[in-house]
């Protein structure tokens, strides 16, 4: 009996309805917190004594970078669940994650490079964090490429799940190797993030943005998941009922 909820989670119509019901619970708080966080970060927080107002891009950059890793992990974990327990919905979750993850990663790269422009006087520096982020983008693109290269959805699900798992094992190794590579070449990084010594007035907006981005991801994921379920189950009879209702 304890397994009923587990099985219901595997049923597409149930997931479709559940996702629809849950979306506003994430979307509205995400919207409110984004406005609050941005206002606090861009207006209320004091300028940095060294970087002036330039540092304020961290309120988008840091949460994006953090989300890129979190989305990859979510993707790999749901892919593993799909692979091991053969739950189709878990594969649909993984599939929905990829494009969003790539977008967050891309946003982190662009904002990082924009931040770098006034600091280094150049848009691209071979900074270890930016390089790690770039490799992560390649991993996302590879995952999406593999998926789109396989016509059969189930096979695409399972093959790309193996890739996601291999990738998630590799991410820390890549990160470590890139850090090591950087320490080797001693390029003094101007691109230093504020440590824990950051004053509360700067830190609170950042934490708010973290929460806002996470909720936004959840809301987007649920929405994408519904689209994914619709396209996968397009020939099922329950879809006709949902669409005509």
């Amino acid at each position, binding site marked *: 009996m304890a397994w009923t909820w587990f099985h219901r989670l595997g049923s597409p119509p149930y997931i479709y309805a559940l996702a629809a019901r849950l979306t506003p619970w994430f979307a509205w708080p995400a919207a409110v917190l984004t406005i609050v966080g941005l206002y606090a970060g861009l207006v209320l927080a004091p300028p940095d004594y060294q970087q002036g107002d330039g540092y304020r891009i961290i309120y988008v950059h840091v949460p994006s970078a953090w989300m890129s890793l979190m989305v990859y992990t979510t993707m790999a974990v749901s892919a593993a669940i799909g692979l091991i327990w053969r739950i189709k919905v878990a594969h649909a979750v993984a599939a929905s994650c990829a494009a969003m993850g790539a977008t967050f990663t891309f946003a982190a790269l662009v904002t990082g490079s924009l931040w770098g422009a006034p600091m280094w006087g150049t848009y691209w520096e071979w900074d270890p964090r930016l390089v790690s982020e770039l490799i992560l983008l390649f991993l996302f693109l590879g995952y999406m490429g*593999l998926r789109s290269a396989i016509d059969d959805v189930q096979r695409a699900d399972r093959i790309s799940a*193996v890739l996601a798992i291999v990738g998630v094992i590799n991410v820390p190794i890549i990160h470590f190797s890139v850090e090591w590579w950087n320490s080797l070449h001693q390029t003094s990084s101007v691109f230093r993030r504020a440590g824990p010594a950051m004053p509360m007035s700067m830190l609170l907006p950042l934490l708010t943005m973290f929460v806002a981005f996470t909720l936004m991801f959840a809301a987007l994921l649920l929405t994408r998941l519904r689209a994914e379920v619709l396209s996968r189950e397009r020939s099922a009879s329950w879809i006709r009922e949902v669409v005509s209702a």
Partner: protein
Amino acid sequence: MTEIRNETVDTTTTSEASFASTATPALAAARLVLARDLRLAFRRPGEMLQPLVFFAIVTTLFPLAITPELSQLRVVAPGVVWVAALLSSLLALEFLYREDAHDGTLEQYALSGQSLTWLLFAKTASHWLLTGLPLALMAPIAALALGAPMSSVPGIVASVAVGSIALSLIGAIGASLTLGVRRSGVLLSILTLPLAIPVLIFGASATSRAIAGEDYSAPLYLVGAIAVLGITLAPLAAAAAVRISLE
């Protein structure tokens, strides 16, 4: 198995005894997989040499594109050698799995009663013997031509030899993932190269330290650690992917 029994057999209660045969021990099975791939490669020596020729050509391009000045080439030599080795290793991978998938050999491996993981490990070993090892022997020649001193040869051989083990294993994952894919060549590279970045970083670092006459043991150990991790995990992932592609 050669004798066919003439008496009538009670068809409902056949015991398994009439099908007794000695299963091949795992080690012998792996040796057969390895021997088959090596023999096939030696039947077509031209194809076997292609990655090495490719490696030689790529390393030749760099002095032509940059400068013939050895003092400058010496600086980029580790990078050149490693990028060329990485690409050559990839080049050979595609054939190795593709043919086996096409002619049903992988299917028979999966149905052999042996561990598919283990058989694919043997297959990866053959890939390394056919490309990794020759590359390790060729890399110092390329490095010498790019201005590396004679004393750096052992370090270069060691780093490319160990690094190419890891590359073969990572490549095996990529090759098995792209089995059921049309025009898989580019995709194979896109999937495999990012995963190979740590090997490239540590391997190139060991090579450049060897060229500079410094102690290269730390990065070499790190490459070795990745190779060991690869040995334990990569055949598992490859076997999972092969099974999925056979479904």
